[in-house]
């Protein structure tokens, strides 16, 4: 009788490549990316830095949506409204109360969290297209409310903001300084999201998304977690909104149309709705594809943008990261 053979060493977790294990390689990769992103502003023009800053802002907003719709399965057509809430919170604090720009982020985060929880409570009743409608109401109501309460919001005229000054002595201009501010917030957002989603809360989110009945049966307080998901999601998007007010220097109801909410959803889907890094891809998509579409066709650029959406969905229905991720894992296993 043959003795049982020990499993091949290859199958054990902690693969080793060139002397270092996979975890260390991943860390090196991430650090390299961060270093690259930090060096980039010095190689690009001010305008390109501005564009990349917008990409990162949209990435944070899309990350918020990913938490809610991707990990927790609650669709939202209203995140543009929460983005606006964050933007106006920052704008009003800066304009009316002279709050320095960096100090507007925590209040924006808090207010949007509370708003999200308040929204999430009635949203518990709804699913699918009904939830879509309720969130849609948020996106539509926002511009109206902003125009109506014009003593606070400046109404139609909007609020013009002073550009934040970079700290003296660093030798950075406005655009580059703001790039780094947003970059730091993005890193923070990713870290917080990763901790949340890879931990107990994240697993609860996913369980509720995939098997709500089983989750309840296992003792997960569905209502509590769904509400937390909503609040956390709007917190992220609200902070992104605050950053956008700071970087653009102007808020008006026109800046936050229904199309913005839809763009976030599209960015989410294209990047990969249940991923974190997909949010960054989504940010790139929202920022650059409309411009590219304009270069391709002067006459009907939005048709090209729509076409791009279709093509992305056909090729990668789970989004870029969502589709490439499993493919990469499979390739790695074969190696």
């Amino acid at each position, binding site marked *: 009788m043959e003795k049982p053979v020990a499993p091949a060493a290859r199958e054990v977790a902690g693969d080793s490549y060139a002397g270092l294990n996979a975890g260390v390689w991943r860390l090196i990769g991430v650090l390299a990316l961060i270093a690259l992103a930090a060096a980039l502003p010095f190689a690009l023009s001010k*305008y390109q830095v501005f564009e990349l800053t*917008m990409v990162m802002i949209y990435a944070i907003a899309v990350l918020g949506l990913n938490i809610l719709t991707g990990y927790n399965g609650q669709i939202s057509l209203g995140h543009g409204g929460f983005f606006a809430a964050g933007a106006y919170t920052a704008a009003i604090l800066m304009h009316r109360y002279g709050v320095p720009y960096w100090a507007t982020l925590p209040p924006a985060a808090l207010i949007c969290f509370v708003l999200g929880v308040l929204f999430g409570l009635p949203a518990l009743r709804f699913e699918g297209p009904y939830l879509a409608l309720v969130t849609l109401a948020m996106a539509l109501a926002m511009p*109206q409310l902003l*125009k109506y309460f014009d003593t606070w919001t400046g109404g*139609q*005229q909007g609020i013009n903001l002073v550009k934040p000054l970079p700290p003296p002595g660093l030798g950075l201009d406005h655009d580059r300084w703001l790039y780094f501010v947003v970059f730091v917030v993005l890193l923070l957002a990713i870290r917080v999201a990763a901790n949340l989603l890879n931990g107990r809360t994240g697993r609860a989110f996913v369980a509720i998304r995939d098997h709500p009945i089983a989750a309840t049966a296992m003792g997960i307080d569905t209502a509590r977690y769904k509400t937390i998901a909503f609040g956390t999601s709007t917190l992220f998007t609200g902070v992104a909104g605050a950053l956008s007010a700071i970087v653009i*220097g102007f808020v008006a*109801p026109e800046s936050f*149309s229904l*199309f913005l909410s839809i763009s976030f959803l599209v960015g989410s889907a294209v990047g990969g709705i249940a991923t974190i890094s997909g949010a960054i891809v989504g940010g790139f998509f929202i920022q650059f594809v409309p411009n590219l579409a304009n270069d391709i066709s002067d006459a009907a650029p939005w048709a090209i943008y729509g076409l791009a959406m279709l093509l992305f969905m056909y090729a990668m229905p789970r989004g870029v990261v969502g589709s490439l991720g499993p493919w990469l894992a499979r390739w790695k296993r074969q190696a």
Partner: protein
Amino acid sequence: MGVMRTRKHAATGLAAAAGVILASGLAWAADQYGPGVTDSEIKLGNTMPYSGPASGLGTLGKAEAAFFAMINDQGGVNGRKINFITRDDGYSPPKTLEITRHLVEEEQVLLMFSALGTATNTAVQDYLNDSKVPQLFIATGAAKWDDPKHHPWTIAFTPNYHIESRIYGRYIGKSLPNAKIAVLYQNDDFGKDYLVGLREGLGDKAEKMIVATKSYETTDPTVDSQIVTLQGSGADVLLTAAVPKFAAQAIRKVYDIGWKPTHFLSYPSSSIGGVMKPAGLEKSVGIISATPFKDGTDPQWQDTAEFKDWAGWMQKYNSAANFGDPFYVDGYIRGQLMLTLIKTAGNDLTRENMMKLATSMRDVKLPMLLPGITASTGPDDYQPLKQMQLQRFDGNTWKLFGEVISGSGS
């Protein structure tokens, strides 16, 4: 309408270097070239809503592009072609900022010309003033742009909505002193400006005379409900401050419910083909508006040389367009004004000089302006056109009446 976009940083750097060399070489020859200017080209930047709910207004940009196309076909100005770079901002201020920065920093345009929108231009106003880039002849009727002290690089063009509605207010106050006035307005700066100007024109009688106001959103499918409510107020004068689609609906509903007020219509919606015809020509009889421009369908201009020039341009470059569409007169006039400034500048094509010329216009006559109306600006006066004339629709065309009235606030 070509848009060049050099994505590679190196290529941009090379082109910039070449431009600097060229410019410095020519500077030696005592000519002054600002950014976007070469011996053969002048770059102008523009943003317009070509998509989204405001896309009807993008027609102005199309008219201007067609004008510059004609100029270029005729050989350009002083040997230079005009590269009119216009981009869609969808009436979204963040997009406008992005595009304007691209035009100024990457395309290096000489100036921004005729960008459209109040919120959109507000978003870039500080940026352009800080960067000392002329924000010329912006296409918006908002009243706040006449502000040389705080924004010396920003200047509007057409009589703003305050001026227009002040004219209506003054006329009503004089000719219909016992009127009860109702107002339908779009719920944004455009609509609200009409309310403000109307009140100013009526003076202290405003509170008594304005008996009802109702607003609408561009997301509303119709304004029928608002018109019905306004009729219920017992008003016999109606001012409609609306964009073409809703103006047409308002005109039709007023007629359908048997209401016969003296109906004033905001100038931006006075296009016969775009408003009167859909509403119903017979339903639009008697409507009053004001204009600084000649109407493309008015027979009294048909035989003049200037009109024939314009008509020829329409036929060659805008064959699908409607002669009654005021955007094609507006755009033509703006183009001519820009052309005049460029010609006058000669070879001193710097941003400073263009701004100086734009703010020191003395009674500039432009062929498609109504006789008696000229463009004037000065260091304290950044509102080029201040006059309009009232016109009444007779079922076929607009008939001017009265005299040219000034609407400046005094």
